[in-house]
């Protein structure tokens, strides 16, 4: 009995001695719980202890840079995603240990270059030249054994869930699900909007009814919607395209040249505005001019005015349409029917 205890003490002493340098699960769990989002911050003193062998846990380390002068937009974008990823794990696993398979533990760590004058040791240690870097440490390896992970391709919560799915496979656990942080702003907006609508209804019942049953309002709404859609708005929304691109010299490119399957966000805005303007001009010809001529009926100057307006409308429509075709020929350079080159069209 006494001997048993002695042996166990000896063994644990031995274990302690061997693991004196490396961090244990318990230490990491305490550190993780202390931080607001379950991420262990790697400072100059602790990072070697945390990452060094022998490990019996998985660890994902993010090396990032929030120093504004560096201007790493990817870092700023990915930081909240990483926090969501870590928080989701810690919320269900306070100890960082998988509930299904206690042999597996997972922790998240981060080192941030927030001040250019004091570059953290870990950046020098690993010779980091590019941020953000995601390093994945598996059990058993040394401080030098790690894989680099790719950043998720998607943005925000979709990216977090993509990353978690991959991480689940890499670690071999199933009990890991994303807890998306609740976005209170949408709740607030909904509440205020609901309140405003109800209030308006009660106060200005007649006006609201008139607006709702007005075919002009509906017509304009529908046309705006159609214009938006035919400008390729859904493509931007689903693909999350950048607003504009840049060329080799750093200049801004509004139209992705020679690319039929791709577009920038601003392209569909420009094109939608063009469509809208062309539609309005057309409506002016069909609806406006007849009203105007009945207004000026019989007067000689009226005919003159209408002629001038019509000519202007026709010329502007032609100009806008020509602009549209030349935009199209940026996307499709072989397009032969550009309105600007009138000479080529009459052949």
């Amino acid at each position, binding site marked *: 009995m006494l001997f048993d205890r002695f042996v166990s003490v000896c063994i644990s002493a031995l274990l302690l001695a061997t693991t004196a340098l490396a961090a244990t699960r318990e230490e990491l769990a305490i550190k993780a719980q202390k931080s607001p989002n379950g991420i262990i911050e790697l400072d100059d003193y602790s990072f070697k202890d945390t990452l060094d062998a022998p490990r019996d846990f998985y660890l994902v380390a993010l090396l990032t840079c929030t120093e504004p002068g560096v201007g790493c937009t990817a870092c700023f974008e990915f930081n909240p995603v990483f926090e969501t990823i870590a928080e989701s794990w810690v919320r269900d696993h306070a100890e960082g240990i998988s509930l299904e398979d206690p042999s597996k533990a997972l922790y998240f760590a981060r080192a941030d270059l927030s001040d250019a004058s004091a570059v953290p040791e870990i950046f020098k240690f690993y010779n980091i030249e590019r941020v953000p870097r995601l390093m994945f440490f598996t059990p058993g390896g040394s401080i030098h054994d790690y894989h680099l992970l790719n950043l998720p391709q998607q943005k925000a919560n979709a990216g977090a869930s993509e990353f978690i799915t991959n991480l689940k496979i890499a670690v071999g656990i199933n009990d890991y699900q994303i807890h998306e942080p609740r976005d209170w702003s949408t709740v607030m907006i909904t509440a205020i909007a609901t309140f405003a609508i109800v209030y308006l209804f009660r106060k200005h019942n007649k006006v609201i009814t008139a607006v709702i049953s007005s075919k002009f309002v*509906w017509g*304009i709404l529908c*046309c*705006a919607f159609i214009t938006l859609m035919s400008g390729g708005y859904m493509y931007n929304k689903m693909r999350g395209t950048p607003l504009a691109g840049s060329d080799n010299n750093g200049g801004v490119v509004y139209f992705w040249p020679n690319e039929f399957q791709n577009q920038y966000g601003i392209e569909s805005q420009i094109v939608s505005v063009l469509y809208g303007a062309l539609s309005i001009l057309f409506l002016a010809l069909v609806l406006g001019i007849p009203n105007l001529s009945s207004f000026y009926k019989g007067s000689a100057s009226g005919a003159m005015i209408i002629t001038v307006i019509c000519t202007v409308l026709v010329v502007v429509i032609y100009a806008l*349409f020509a602009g549209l075709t030349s935009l199209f020929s940026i996307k499709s350079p072989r397009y032969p029917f550009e309105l600007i080159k009138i000479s080529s069209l009459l052949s």
Partner: protein
Amino acid sequence: MSEIVEKIVVPDNAVTANEESKVTSGKYVSFIQSSLKTLIFIAIIVASISSRLFAVVRFESIIHEFDPWFNYRATQYLVNNSFKDFLNWFDERTWYPLGRVTGGTLYPGLMTTSAFIWHALRKIGLPVDIRNICVLFAPAFSAITAYVTYKLTCELKDQKAGLLAAAFIGIVPGYISRSVAGSYDNEAIAITLLMATFMFWIKGLKQGSILNSSFAALCYFYMVSAWGGYVFITNLIPFHVFCLILMGRYTAKIYVAYNTWFVIGTIASMQIPFVGFLPIKSNDHMAALGVFGLLQLVALGDFVKTKISEKKFKLIMWVSVILIMVIGVAGLFALTYLGLIAPWTGRFYSLWDTNYARIHIPIIASVSEHQPITWPAFFLDTHFLIWLFPAAVFLMFMDLKNEHVFIIVYSVLCSYFAGVMVRLMLTLTPVICISGAVALSKLFDIYLDFSPIFSTKTTGTKKSSFMTVLTRGLVSASFVYYLYLFVHHCTWVTQSAYSSPSVVLPSQNRDGSMAIIDDYREAYYWLRMNTDYDAKIASWWDYGYQIGGMADRTTLVDNNTWNNTHIAIVGKAMASPEEVSYELLKEHDVDYVLIIFGGVLGFGGDDINKFLWMIRIAEGIWPEEVKERDFFVNQGEFRVDSQASETMKKSLMYKMSYNGFADLFPNGQGQDRVRQQVITADDVENLDYFDEVFSSENWLVRIYKLKDLDVEGRDLSDVAEFERAKNTKRSSNKKPQIELRV
């Protein structure tokens, strides 16, 4: 041919002018009008058919792409067997060894129609090859579409708009994209039926006519039998009725038209084996059922209203509305709980939440037809009609009769769906043509009226009337010019973008003359002539229909993609090392493996470029054995040259693609023209379990035969090792003449 196309526009305006100038009346005018109309229609039909024949003129009378090959094969089966056999057709030559219940899993409308035409032509003594019927099917139906669209637009405005709409739909690229000669697909007939259903629906609604609504139901039935996109009608018509009710426009006419259409249409559609009980089960059809119920209640309310006082009616209305809502919600919950209906399935979300499919259903996300659409594609498909479209919808609001509500609803819904999914552009195009035609004919109504110059009794001076005519001339001229451009644009798009069969590839010789790359057919014909009739061919699913149609050999997987696991088996075989693949393929009785390799030719759509999808799909089933990560080199790159990852080099697909590739080049430095990487003979390991039996002229298609098991029971790699030790001389490979082409 573009000359013919141009002609449409001019007589069109002639009629507009003709009709507008109601100077004289009498028999002559109406005679001239009707003969002009006939003439215009003939011109439209000629134009719409002839612009679809580019593919036949450029290449030959051949079935295009992938799915049409299945439709063609099914039609051949129907022509050679009875209709009953066709419906009970179990095809054991695809999805080997599972087979496919083809008769119960296809939309038979297309095949039945062409078989009917084939039989009818034989009856009148015109035996036409079924292939030619299939090839020319889509152009012929596009002519009918033009006529039906004319009828539909007549209901909206008048004949002038109708003729314009018919001309537009005849040549608009958005519709031609799926209906060129040889594109023997369900959409070829479906758009015609879509327009016919809508035309009869609007007629029935206007007149409250049971006859027209029954025709609408019959067209709907035909549509259900032909295309899965019938769900669009199933939702659009109820939504139209729902909007009319909301606008307070309920009449007995609507009641009659909708009930007739719904009852006949639903019962008829349930006769299609593939559809079966879907119309009363699936959530796609719930809107139609719901509006049917709602219409009964509204009719009841309408009746009660005439019998009692207004005060009592209000009370009854409120009570019944609350009662119905409670019962409805409770019923929905109960049915969902019991598992009888499943309204909140993935498909439901994927339509509205556009990110859902991308994250949760990768197989949908991977198909290029399901991608969102960019603005140049809209412009390419409709030219100036795209900016006329919003204006036209606004003009519909100015009239806002019941039929205009229909077009508005159609436009708004469909422009959303087309934005989300590229293939739905096809259903948006007709409404763009129709509303564009209506808007344009309104413009011409005003500005093509040159009567002031002839009339002397106007109050204005001669100068002002001259000014008016000048203005009108200017406006009309500019829009006639746009029409002229439209015709040129359509012809250009059709011939440059939509007329390639993709079975034979166009190419250019060094001197710029046209060359045709015919490797696919060469390879499929080789299979047909040189392999056993019962030979099983393993290839990636893209080529399944073509192998079935052209080579008439049994395939493991095809474009029907109904069984993901089976596809993953092929993916695993391609991604695994030879010995594993050999075992797997032998288990499935495979005799030959066919791959597409574009490295020699520079053809980007080859199997190495699709390889990642094979790996991903295989990984989905066997995450332990196939890992996507292993195929990348450290930098996350997908390489095929000497730096390629070990797993990549060992994979069957890699070995088969680059087997003997370096020997083609004089210095042994194989230049892959797709991936721009250099492959030497040392990079490609020996292929011990497979024999190369055929490579097409430009190496686009390569076919390998599985070696027989060794008679002495040795491992095949040992045999090959032994043979190599015995005989170090390499066998020389057939060299394609790659210098010829650019």
